[in-house]
């Protein structure tokens, strides 16, 4: 085989690669990315890696402290709760509710919101305005309150919570995508592409979309942290995920009674929630910083 790399060649990285390099230079972003990857992996493998069944009750090990405590047992790494259920298994299994379901909600909100936003951004006049402000009424109510209203009507269940959160996130996606496309649409390269005779679909997907990915990524991370927080908050209030399911917010609510007796029951799920949301926010923020940096250097 012919070796074409005889000379050292300094290649300037592509725009996406540049963002990745900027992110790599920021240790917090790297740590957040690794933590998030770890959490995702934990969520996907949760049925396989939980040491015990999360609902299994050990009558002889009620309120066992974590294993690093003097009276802890290595069998229950994070200790057990007041019903003798293994806390580690519950936290691992809970990631499906606290991370997986928000991901699904954000996915649906993103698909619907980006489609409507793109449609609004590519059209003009009354049509654009109508589409852009289609769901604006929702923005006037805080997301948690709207979720409460929907649950008050439909009754508390995970499905209704998902429905409420998806609905709340859609208008934000519509606005950010519409605004991003609107900003791009009047730039010269779009005119140049129009004079190339491209059709509207190609214009949207190949010409404009690569330039608004940053806005979309930022909006998605923002939506994801909102969704996680809302599902946990509703679980905490007893309106979302129902009691035996190991959702992190529900676990926090249950631990309130015994917070002085067994603080680990509150601290450990709270820590999981805190770290997940923190790492998502750090990641979103550093993506934004990396993009700003690239734009400044260009």
């Amino acid at each position: 085989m012919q070796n074409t790399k005889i000379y050292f060649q300094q290649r300037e990285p592509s725009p996406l690669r540049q963002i990745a390099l900027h992110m790599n230079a920021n240790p917090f972003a790297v740590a957040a990315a690794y933590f998030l990857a770890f959490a995702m992996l934990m969520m996907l493998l949760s049925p396989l890696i939980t040491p015990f069944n999360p609902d299994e009750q050990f009558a002889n090990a009620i309120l066992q402290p974590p294993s690093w405590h003097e009276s802890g047992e290595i069998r229950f790494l994070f200790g057990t709760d007041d019903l003798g259920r293994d806390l580690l298994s519950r936290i691992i299994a809970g990631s499906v509710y606290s991370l997986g379901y928000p991901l699904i909600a954000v996915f649906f909100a993103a698909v619907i919101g980006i489609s409507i936003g793109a449609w609004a951004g590519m059209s003009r006049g009354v049509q654009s305005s109508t589409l852009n402000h289609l769901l604006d009424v929702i923005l006037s109510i805080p997301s948690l309150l709207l979720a409460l209203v929907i649950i008050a009507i439909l009754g508390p269940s995970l499905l209704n919570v998902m429905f409420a959160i998806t609905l709340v996130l859609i208008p934000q996606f519509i606005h950010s995508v519409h605004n991003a496309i609107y900003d791009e649409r009047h730039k010269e390269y779009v005119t140049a592409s129009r004079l190339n005779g491209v059709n509207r679909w190609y214009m949207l997907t190949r010409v404009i979309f690569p330039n608004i990915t940053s806005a979309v990524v930022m909006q998605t991370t923002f939506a994801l942290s909102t969704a996680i927080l809302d599902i946990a908050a509703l679980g905490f209030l007893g309106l979302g995920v129902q009691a035996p399911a190991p959702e992190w917010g529900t676990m926090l609510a249950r631990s309130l009674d015994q917070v002085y007796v067994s603080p680990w029951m509150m601290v450990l799920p709270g820590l999981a929630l805190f770290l997940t949301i923190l790492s998502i926010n750090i990641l979103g923020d550093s993506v934004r910083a990396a993009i700003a940096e690239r734009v400044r250097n260009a």
Partner: protein
Amino acid sequence: MSKLLEVRGISKYYVHKDGWLPGKRVCALEPTSFTLGRGETLSIMGETGSGKSTIAKIIAGAERPSQGEIFINGQSLNLMSDQQRCRHVRMIFQDSLRSLNPQTTVGKQLCEPLIFNTELTPRQQKERVHNTLRKVGLLPDHYDFYPHMLSSGQQQRVCIARAIVLEPQIIVADEAFAALDPSIRAQIINLMLDLQQDMGISFIFVSHSTEIVKHVSDKILIMHRGKMIEFGTTQALIQQSEEPLTRALLCSDYNYKVPLNSTTKE
């Protein structure tokens, strides 16, 4: 000589809307007519804000005229879609970096007009882009480059490549050389003159620079405050021009004060 391009009374008005009141009409270009033959070069000169860029944009299709019609080989451009138009007229923008998509490689951008206007297979498209890159003095290696990796002169060459890749009959260059340093400017002008000889393209230049205009153009059109005040061959305008503005623009040694009233013949 056959008339390739015929511009009949095109004009452009902008409406400045302020609140609910009906807007004020602002005239950017008063009705203007001229013709251009095959292989000829027309230069449009004038002061800033005199409507010369507007003419260029209207001919290239970046803006629609308020009135008037443009004919190419007797066919009206107003009835054509952007897709049909770009097979005849292509434009080179003023700012080359801004007119290139920052997130797409040069090669993909050059393929774009080929996808929509030719029946070529992806392989033939790539070959044609490689040839075009060679024509404008770049390498086929530049196919995979992103616009920000190139120098400004190379970016300008990419823009020229994009204009000629469809082998159009007319290329409109809107102050395409203003931002370049003299040596690169000379290179690119020579390149465009070579291309004109090879491919028989008609050029429309919008330019400030007297030297370039004198060097390249067959005809000159002088604009002032949205009006065409003079149109003629380069020779005629340089030797015997009636308008003081024309002499001021073409002969920089001519001592002249820019008139503040609307036309120069008052």
